[in-house]
């Protein structure tokens, strides 16, 4: 082996242990403590150490915080100023007494703790707390309420637009997100549990559930799976999603994600568990069933008949985007006899000049469309429209006029594309995008037989999935008639008497009896009362 590699190998252990092992707790010498903090952070300039003297006692102290993670205004006005103006009550006050006095009288904030352990101190420093060290004491304060700094404010959702309903969306800040749900469900039964995942990122992950509704086995299972995660970083909830799902070898999403607090609230009320991850507006929901990906929040806000219609429409859309091109390929390649005569003549006439078999034609068009979509997604908005114009012109017009593809194929691909955008859940739309190509292959090889076999296989696959113990296709398979009030059809609210017992094991009663609204008793028509009524109305 060359010495170069040897050298590298020898250097490696030094890199993995750059600093001395951490001492367990702080010392009473201020300078020692400060130098340890500096050394620990490698003198990073964003770790601000402000040394000061505490008011009248002239005791040396230091305030440590991370620039950008704290609210400067709050820190200056309340913390540093109060410390400087501290007046000790007695002349010969001992250090521990002073410590208590400062805790009791000086810091006008919540979230103040006395700490001695370095690990805890550094951890809270990194989430935006301020540390206060006082010379001569072996305790330090952590002030958690100084957390602040810049963050995105609450804005409208970008992926789940609604026509009716709350326009709020989650932000990147986990505490803001949790508070947004708390503002909707105001009950002490809304429980939150926190943990940190990621050896490097120490990402805050919280699970939230309604203690009186949730199935506690699911909560235990969620906690078990989260605790099992040993990874260096969690940058987005997608990391968690892929690390805790039941069946990783499946194209279908087994965990729901949303950026709308009202969706989280609605699902918590059905007994699901929400998983919040710091740094992302996408909150996870488990357990989930397949049909949920076809539901939107405004289904529940609109009238039930309209909502039911749109749900059927979405299932239809799902199948179009899944097998649209495949059916075209199968029909033109194998089953011309199944197309009505006039139609088949038109298609055949158009296809006459096309030099490819239908499957190649479809593949070219679908790939072109995927390229266009990917290009449009990443480009700046100003150029994005150029792409669509160029793409539309080139593919829609020029390719047809050149006789490379047939107009019916363009229609099929365009309908499929629009259908795939109309699927409410992007997670399902993206897996359908993948499966579409498999179905096109089956159609090219076996016609409708291949498509039907593929669909049955997909159904078997979907039926074999589970999400945190709940069958993925429930309540369709296993069929639970009672719970079909909120699947393909959306029963009116006055008929939705129960929560789905799939998720909430113990507490399924949702509303009182006789919630169906009805007009008041018709007024008995007497001659007097009608006269009176007339007067009132006039």
């Amino acid at each position, binding site marked *: 082996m060359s010495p170069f590699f040897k050298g590298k190998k020898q250097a490696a252990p030094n890199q993995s242990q750059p600093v001395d092992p951490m001492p367990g707790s702080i010392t009473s010498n201020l300078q020692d403590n400060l130098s340890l903090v500096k050394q620990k952070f490698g003198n990073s300039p964003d770790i601000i150490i402000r040394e000061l003297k505490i008011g009248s006692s002239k005791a040396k102290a230091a305030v440590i915080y991370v620039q950008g993670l704290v609210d400067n205004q709050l820190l200056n006005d309340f913390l540093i100023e109060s410390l400087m103006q501290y007046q000790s009550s007695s002349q010969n006050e001992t250090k521990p007494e002073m410590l208590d006095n400062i805790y009791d009288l000086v810091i006008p904030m919540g979230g103040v703790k006395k700490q001695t352990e370095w690990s805890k101190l550094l951890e809270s420093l990194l989430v935006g707390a301020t540390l206060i060290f006082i010379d001569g004491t072996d305790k330090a304060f952590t002030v958690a309420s100084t957390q602040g700094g810049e963050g995105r404010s609450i804005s409208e959702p970008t992926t789940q637009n609604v026509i009716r309903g709350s326009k709020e969306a989650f932000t990147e800040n986990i505490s803001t997100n949790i508070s947004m749900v708390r503002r909707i469900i105001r009950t002490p039964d809304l429980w939150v549990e926190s943990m940190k995942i990621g050896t490097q990122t120490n990402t805050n992950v919280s699970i939230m559930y309604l203690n009186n509704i949730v199935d506690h086995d699911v909560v235990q299972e969620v906690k078990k799976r989260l605790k099992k995660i040993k990874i260096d970083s969690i940058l987005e909830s997608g990391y968690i999603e892929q690390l805790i799902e039941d069946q990783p070898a499946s194209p279908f999403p087994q965990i729901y994600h949303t950026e709308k607090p009202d969706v989280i609230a609605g699902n918590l009320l059905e007994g699901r568990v929400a998983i919040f991850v710091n740094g992302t507006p996408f909150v996870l929901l488990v357990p989930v069933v397949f049909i949920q990906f076809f539901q939107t929040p405004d289904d529940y806000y609109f009238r039930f008949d309209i909502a039911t219609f749109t749900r059927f429409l979405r299932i239809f859309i799902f199948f179009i985007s899944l097998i649209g091109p495949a059916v075209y390929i199968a029909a033109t390649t194998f*089953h011309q006899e199944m197309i009505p005569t006039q139609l088949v003549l038109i298609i055949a006439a158009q296809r006459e000049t096309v030099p490819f078999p239908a499957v190649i034609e479809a593949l070219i068009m679908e790939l072109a469309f995927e390229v266009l979509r990917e290009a449009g997604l990443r480009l700046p908005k100003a150029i994005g429209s150029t792409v669509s114009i160029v793409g539309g012109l080139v593919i829609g017009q020029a390719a047809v006029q050149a006789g490379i593809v047939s107009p019916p194929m363009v229609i099929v691909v365009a309908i499929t594309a629009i259908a795939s955008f109309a699927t409410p859940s992007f997670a399902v739309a993206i897996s359908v995008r993948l499966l579409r190509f498999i179905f096109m292959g089956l159609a090219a090889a076996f016609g409708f*037989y291949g498509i039907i076999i593929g669909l049955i*296989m997909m*159904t078997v696959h979907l*039926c*074999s999935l589970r999400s945190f113990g709940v069958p993925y*296709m429930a309540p369709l*398979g*296993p*069929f639970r008639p009672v719970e079909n009030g909120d699947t393909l059809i959306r029963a009116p609210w006055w008929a939705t008497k129960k929560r789905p017992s799939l998720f909430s094991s113990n507490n399924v009663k949702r509303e009182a009896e006789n919630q169906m609204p009805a007009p008041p008793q018709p007024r008995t028509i007497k001659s007097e009362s009608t006269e009176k009524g007339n007067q009132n109305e006039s």
Partner: protein
Amino acid sequence: MEKAKISPRQLFVLMVLFQLGSSIIIPVGLTAKQDAWLAILGGMAGGLLLFLLYYKVGSYYPGLVPTEYMPKIWGPVLGKIFAFLYVLYLFYLAARVLRDFGEMLVIFAYPETPLFIINLLWMVLVVYTVRKGIEALARTGEILFTVVAILAVTSFILLVFNGSIDTRNLQPVFEEKPITLLKAMGESVTFPFGEILVFTMIYPYLTQLKKAKRVGLYAVLISGLILSVTMAINLSVLGFSLLSRSQFPLLSTIQTIQLAEFLERLDVFFMIGVIIGGFFKITIFVYVAIMGAASLFKVKESSHLVFPLGLITLFLSIGIAGNFPEHIREGLDVVPLYLHLPFQVIFPLLLLVGAILRNKKKQKKQLATK
């Protein structure tokens, strides 16, 4: 045995789909001419009796499948030999049904595709499903049952609006001699109703064993009625002479639909229904055959057997007959007499006698020890 549970509803759906699977395409009881639909009803009565027979035998050994209780009744050596024959019978039927559906697709839509390729795709699906287990199959059954029901109702409505149903085709009723009708009934007992035998391998999965009897009786009854109604519709649309010359009467019936100059050539309805039915028929046969083999040879992980035995079934389906006429001939002349009759009727009867005798002995012993 895998660790799985299915609900009575799921068992019912599986039984109905299984029985309708191939019998809805291949006409049954045609010796009775336009009374075929009556013959099917008679066959159904026989099917109910057969079901009760299987249920009775099984009820002496709850939670056990036939390959497990055969050695208990007939002694380890003889019992195992018969259990082995029974497993072979199941494999043969699986291969037969696979061949049926493969040939059907070749004739109906894919004249230029090799049978082996068609059967290969079937087996890919079947092997995948069997590996996923009975629970996934049962859930799929519930969903696809709805699909089939919607297709059937739609077709029926379209047929009515199309005006193709002519009940005069069913007349005269009871034209043939009673003996011919009885013969037709007898034919339809073993196929399709006698094939319910395979569910003796599935009952142990049922969550409520008590309901097995009711579920089974209902399933035979409902599928018999559906079959009879379908046959009556086919007869009234096509008439007997056309029907007897048609390879797939149901397809011919559906092809008569021509509505609004657009709703025509609904072959795809037929295709969806047939493929779903075929899927359940083949999968259940392969599943029970593999479970039987696993329990007979004490293989703990039955999923290990799925690939090799699935492959064997695939090759068996090609090898059992040289061509389609030979296959059909065997199915009509040889199989009912030499395979269905012993395995569906004679052996279960012998098993019942054995079980009753064994249990009497046991009771006597128990009394003696008391």
